[in-house]
């Protein structure tokens, strides 16, 4: 999910090197071959006028642990939008900049639940009704599966917090069916048993991999898109059609429908990248596809190939931004908002469309396949994704990859630095609901991790960092990795003790400012402010033109370097600006000589600005 807010590469060497991907017959798509833990067979009907869903699902769950499963715990996410008393709406009445509309609530109701043999079960609601539980007649031992038959109906909200309807005929349907939590042993999770939390405002999702076969019945004329591949389409002759999708080794299933969608596609490294767009956004086609192509290409090169046969990018209506900028397996939503309100800013000067597209596609690696627990450790999926976005945007779109409008130029990295500098005392680690207010969550899960991982890359070097990231991805693809798993991998691959990163940045809340506080004829004084310590170096330049690079651990508050035999001209701490978390770069370098030329250049412009202001104030 977004918080905001191509040259081809040598691909063959890296693509999918660790993946069990034997050449498949041309006709059959090549799905990742892993245990299918939580599988759903769903038949659902959309009433496009009433905005309701009526469905039946068969759930099959495989116990991959050696702990017997006595019950089943479901997410009923849509109940978060039922009324103001839900945990979600008590925590925040708005999501992603849009308010919940009390006139168009959302809810889901389980109308029947039984075992595959017909044995009826009793469902009990947990907390605010976004969770529910059934007792199984007998515990399901490790290695065995159980199946449930569930009938449900749901009311879709007006688009809010990623899901719902907009206008008469736009549907983005996510978190819409009764869905099991993740059965985990205590060794892998904060809780032993069902890892499932009520739906919190800041929290996203956590689920097992499985197979989804979903048949959607809806009025004819609607164009549909979904997680998975379309496998069948049938006109029912009564004004409705049924479209079926199949997906394998995915953790969720979402779908979208509107009669207004147009579509276009591009094949990128064997992946069919499809773009669903609304006619009013036809100008976004090339930009969205270029961004998607760059993302699939570069992330594939850096971390490992995109593992599914298809990727759908969905455009959303201007005022349904609550549905935009979200990730699901094989489906992401993007969207473009015109900040002027004039309908004339088609994103010529900003790359928010590209940013959102790249970010959401990044989640295909860091969420959809390296399936982090987004509720317990939100910094992982958002942070890894945002770091990847910063990296890709800079590589593909140049130094001003976020905004490039005349005098206003901004890189995405600096946008994140802007967020970070407002709340630098935020630890990255914490459960989604530990971060009060969206600002703290935004810094903890997005801005700080993006800058911290960029700093880690600058210190380890690009090559080592890519090895850390790709090793981690290859190891934990189609699993549920944690912060500890990342620490183990990062320290092992880099061969370094990364306490400064994990203790200082992930768990710590200290901030840091390095500066050169004095340069004298024979000495240089450097200083650290704040509790955070990151090893760095000081470049000292002498009058004879020579220079020396002094390593400094930063541990003490202050350090003096002396040079009795040489005359110091200037000194700069962290001259490569590797530490993008340094709260002030402007005081990193100091010279004994004033830079008169630069001083004059700035004064020339200042002088002109004053003349200019006076002209405006004095009547143009």
């Amino acid at each position: 999910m977004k918080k905001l807010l191509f040259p081809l590469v040598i691909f063959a060497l890296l693509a999918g090197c660790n993946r069990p991907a034997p050449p498949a017959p041309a006709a059959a798509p090549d799905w990742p071959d892993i245990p299918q833990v939580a599988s759903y067979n769903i038949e659902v009907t959309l009433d496009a006028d009433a905005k309701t869903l009526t469905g039946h699902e068969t759930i099959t769950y495989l116990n991959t642990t050696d702990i017997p499963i006595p019950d089943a715990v479901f997410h009923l996410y849509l109940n978060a939008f039922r009324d103001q008393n839900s945990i979600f709406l008590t925590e925040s009445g708005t999501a992603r900049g849009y308010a919940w509309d009390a006139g168009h609530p959302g809810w889901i109701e389980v109308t029947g639940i039984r075992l595959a043999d017909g044995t009826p079960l009793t469902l009990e609601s947990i907390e605010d009704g976004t969770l529910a539980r059934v007792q199984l007649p007998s515990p399901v031992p490790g290695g065995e599966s159980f199946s449930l038959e569930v009938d449900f109906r749901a009311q879709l909200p007006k688009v809010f917090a990623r899901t719902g309807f907009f206008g008469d005929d736009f549907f983005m349907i996510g978190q819409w069916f009764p869905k099991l939590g993740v059965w985990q042993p205590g060794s892998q999770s904060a809780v032993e048993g069902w890892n499932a939390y009520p739906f919190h405002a800041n929290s996203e999702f956590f689920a097992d991999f499985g197979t989804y076969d979903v048949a959607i019945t809806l009025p004819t004329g609607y164009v549909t898109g979904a997680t998975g591949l379309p496998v069948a389409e049938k006109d029912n002759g009564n004004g409705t059609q049924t479209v079926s999708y199949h997906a394998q080794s995915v953790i969720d299933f979402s779908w979208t429908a509107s009669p207004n969608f147009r579509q276009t596609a591009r094949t990128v490294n064997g992946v069919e990248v499809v773009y669903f767009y609304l006619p009013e956004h036809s100008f976004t086609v090339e930009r969205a596809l270029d961004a998607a192509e760059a993302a699939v290409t570069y992330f594939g090169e850096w971390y490992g190939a995109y593992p599914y046969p298809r990727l759908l990018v969905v455009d959303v209506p201007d005022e349904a931004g609550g549905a935009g900028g979200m990730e699901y397996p094989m489906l992401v939503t993007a969207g473009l908002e015109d900040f002027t309100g004039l309908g004339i800013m088609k994103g010529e000067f900003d790359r928010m469309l590209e940013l959102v597209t790249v970010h959401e596609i990044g989640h295909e690696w860091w969420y959809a396949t390296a399936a982090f627990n987004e509720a317990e450790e939100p910094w992982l999926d958002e942070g890894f994704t945002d770091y990847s976005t910063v990296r890709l945007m800079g590589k593909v779109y140049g130094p001003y990859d976020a905004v490039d409008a005349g005098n206003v130029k901004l890189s995405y990295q600096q946008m994140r630095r802007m967020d970070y500098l407002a709340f630098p005392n935020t630890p990255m680690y914490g459960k989604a609901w530990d971060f009060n207010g969206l600002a703290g969550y935004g810094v903890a899960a997005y801005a700080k991790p993006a800058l911290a991982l960029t700093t880690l890359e600058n210190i380890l070097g690009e090559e080592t960092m890519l090895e850390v990231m790709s090793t981690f991805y290859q190891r934990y693809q189609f699993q549920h990795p944690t912060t500890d798993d990342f620490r183990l991998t990062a320290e092992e691959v880099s061969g370094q003790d990364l306490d400064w990163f994990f203790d200082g940045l992930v768990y710590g809340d200290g901030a840091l400012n390095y500066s050169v506080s004095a340069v004298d004829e024979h000495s240089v004084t450097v200083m650290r402010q704040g509790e955070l310590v990151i090893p760095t170096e000081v470049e000292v330049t002498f009058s004879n033109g020579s220079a020396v690079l002094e390593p400094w651990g930063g541990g003490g508050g202050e350090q003096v370097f002396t040079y009795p035999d040489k005359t110091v001209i200037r000194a700069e701490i962290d001259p490569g600006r590797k530490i993008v978390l340094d709260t002030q770069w402007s005081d990193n370098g100091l010279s004994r000589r004033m830079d008169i030329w630069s001083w004059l250049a700035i004064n020339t412009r200042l002088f002109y600005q004053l003349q200019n202001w006076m002209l405006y104030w004095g009547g143009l």
Partner: protein
Amino acid sequence: METNDENGTLMNADAADKDIDQVSTPEQPASPPISISGAPLPRLNGFRAFGVGLSRSLRYPQLLLVSYLVSLLSAGMLAFVPALMLTTPAHRIAIREAANGIDDWLVIELMESPLASGALGGPVEPRFPDWMNGWILAGLATWLILPVVVWLPASFVTGGALLTFVEGQKFSWRRFLWGCWRWFGAFLLLNALEGFVSQLLFGGLLTGAVIAGIAAGGWLNWVTLPLVALLAMLWLAAVEATRAMAVAGGTRNIFRAFGRAAAAIFRRPLQYFLLYGLAMLLLLLVHAIFRLGLMPVVPLAWWPVVFAATQAFILLRLWARLARWAGVAGIIGMTSDG
């Protein structure tokens, strides 16, 4: 009556204004205030007024020179303190990047410096970068004295410039300075009122328009924003016509002059609309050439080139303003005559 003695009889000149409509000067007692020279211009439409303004502003390069000197002097005064304070950060290596054009990271850092400093806690006291305090103070001081610095010289020069345009004679420094002095107080007051009303009126209108745009949807901006721009132009025309009317009518009662100017605009709106439309287009053209054509290709660190480019732009802006004044003086001269 004597208006330009050193005892400042300007102060009690208001009483005199009530019954004079004629400019009286030491050299030209009771001379008719308006005498447009050159070919008779029986009907000065907006196009021709603009043309007259352009040619007349070029006929008196002295006025441009004086305006430019005022600009240099005022900006110099204002820039002095910040320039002095910049000598400390000019020892920072990052100053070179600032000289090349303020980069995004620097803006963000400066903006958020107080927040970040508060977060540093630790062994050293939280603080702005050593030069930030100075900047903030200098900025505040500049902000506070800016209106005064702008109003004083600008108000002073206006009377003389308009008198020169209205009379259309050979340029005389004596006459010019006399005009400057005579209308100094009146225009100071008018400029203060203009500034106050502009901020109130257009601050409010613009805020209203933006809120309405947000509430009703973007399409409304297409209606409201041009409307606000039109109103702003009308307001500018009214104020400038007031000044010209005051000089042409020999009065320092700006309220009476405003009434007359409003009536004149109401009688012949097209004339003023054309003159101000063309003048705004000229201004827009000058801006476009400078901002879109020239500045993007000038490397900002090459300050001598930047200086030449920016000063040429300022001169063109001043000239465009003088041309507008000359144009409106032309219209008022003609209508008063005819």
